[in-house]
């Protein structure tokens, strides 16, 4: 599902953030991605949702070499990937409901087809009574949950979450981890970037550890 071979990445003329990274992730697996702040976790995730192309090396997603992708192939591929951004990236002029429903709206399905599902998902993450609110007025934890709901609403094959529990209390974090595990059981491959040691302790998923631009895997 995901295969990296000798991947290197630098921003502009800067230092190489990722160096010679090689790994592969099997479909249906569950991984934590961890490492010190500034190690390049977010950068690695950006490569995975095709916001960046590697400076060198090979990135292969869903059996396709991302270097050979044309811009018209991207939307189709991105619909298979759900992303929870570290900074949420919710749109303030839309309601929380509309933010969460955005991936479905972007596929041009009629709203009536997905409305009930989105409402149910929002209730499940505890935003049932915040649906009409703008993300601007949500608390950090509520934003986080909205961002997670948006990432999973399209039933992606690959879920990438960047610090998805950074703003919630431990019990909510546990609940959200439960959500990711539930999705994983349904077949979604999950990668969660986090510093949260407590969270990682709750699961026996393998850890991918980024340090000094190199990646190690610990089971």
């Amino acid at each position, binding site marked *: 599902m995901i295969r990296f071979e000798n991947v290197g990445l630098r921003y502009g003329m800067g230092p190489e953030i990722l160096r010679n990274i090689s790994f592969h992730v099997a479909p249906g697996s569950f991984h934590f991605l961890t490492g010190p702040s500034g190690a390049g976790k977010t950068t690695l995730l950006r490569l995975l*949702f095709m916001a960046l192309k590697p400076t060198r090396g090979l990135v292969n997603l869903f059996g396709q070499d991302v270097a050979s992708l044309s811009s018209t192939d991207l*939307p189709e591929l991105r619909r298979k990937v759900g992303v929870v951004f570290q900074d949420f990236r919710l749109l303030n002029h*839309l309601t929380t409901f*509309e933010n969460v429903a955005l991936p479905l709206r*972007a596929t041009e399905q009629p709203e*009536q087809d997905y409305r009930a599902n989105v409402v149910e998902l929002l209730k499940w993450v505890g935003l049932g009574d915040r649906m009409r609110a703008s993300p601007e007025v949500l608390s950090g934890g509520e934003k986080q949950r909205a961002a997670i709901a948006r990432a*999973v609403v399209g*039933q992606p094959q690959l879920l990438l979450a960047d610090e998805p529990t950074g703003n919630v209390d431990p019990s909510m974090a546990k609940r959200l981890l*439960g959500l990711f595990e539930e999705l994983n059981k349904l077949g979604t491959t999950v990668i969660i970037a986090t510093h949260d040691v407590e969270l990682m302790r709750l699961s026996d998923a393998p850890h991918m550890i980024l340090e000094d631009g190199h990646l190690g895997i610990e089971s």
Partner: protein
Amino acid sequence: MSRKPQKPVIPPGKPKSRPKATPAPAGWLQRYFDRITHKSTPIVPVENVIGRALVLVTAIMCFLACLALGTAWAVHRASVAWTSEAASELTLQIKPVEGLNMTDEVTKAMRHLGNVNGVVRAEPISNEETRKLLEPWLGAELNFEELPVPQLITVEIDRRNPPNLQVLASDLIAIVPGARLDDHRVWQNQVRSAANWIKWTSFLVLILMLGATIAIIVFATQGAMSSNRDVVNVLHLVGARDKFIVREFERHFLVLGLKGGLAGGLLAATAFIVARYALEQIAPRSLDGEFNNLIHAVSIGWSGFAAIAGIVAFLAILTSRTSRYTVYRYLKSVE
């Protein structure tokens, strides 16, 4: 927050691979109704400074375009009305000549005109009428005995069977030495070329304005794109196609263009109605004929309103098409 998850996260009943949105025969209409009845927030934020500025500019441009076109049209109609009337009407001028009696000369000329084929009617303009015509220049105390005022005869010709005007003129000079036949051609040509000049100037102004409008829409769209960079990024990341993003922006700009166009069009229609009313009020009675032509030309009928509606529609479409093109170019550049 106390509720425990009891059921699978993803509501069941949805196939893993979503079926492609097939436009079923009744589907698109249904979807259209859904779209307008559900009224979800536009993906492109509506309220912003650029949007308001664009509405204002479009309104002004639409107003000016209507004015330019309206002016061209009014001038065209007035010049056609004037020149065609004048063409069927000649003026025979008989200047006083030493030793000849004016009344005899007029009678001779009238008799000749009566025998020419193609002349429908000939009528001397009475002293009273001449006095009225000259009053503004020479005052009311006009004495015809003292002044060598030429006598004018209006000659109406059959336009389908006109007499040879050169022959007619030379024949008349032979009979009446003071005669001069004025077929208004010089004046007519002047009116025509002035009218043409105004028409072409109006079109030039129109084209310049269209160019300016397009440039402004391009700038506004580029501004909207860069101030909505986040929106575009997020849309890309959730898998929206460029087509979808373009359509959202296009719809946004179509609405802006329509708003501005309608405001400008309404203003223009009002301006034409007011102009007509004002002309009616100031029309001097003595110039009734000419003024009626002008008033008639200025008044906009249903065709005028249709033309304004056309301009509004054209501007709205221009706005959305231009923004569409600009958005496509932007999206190409960020990929």
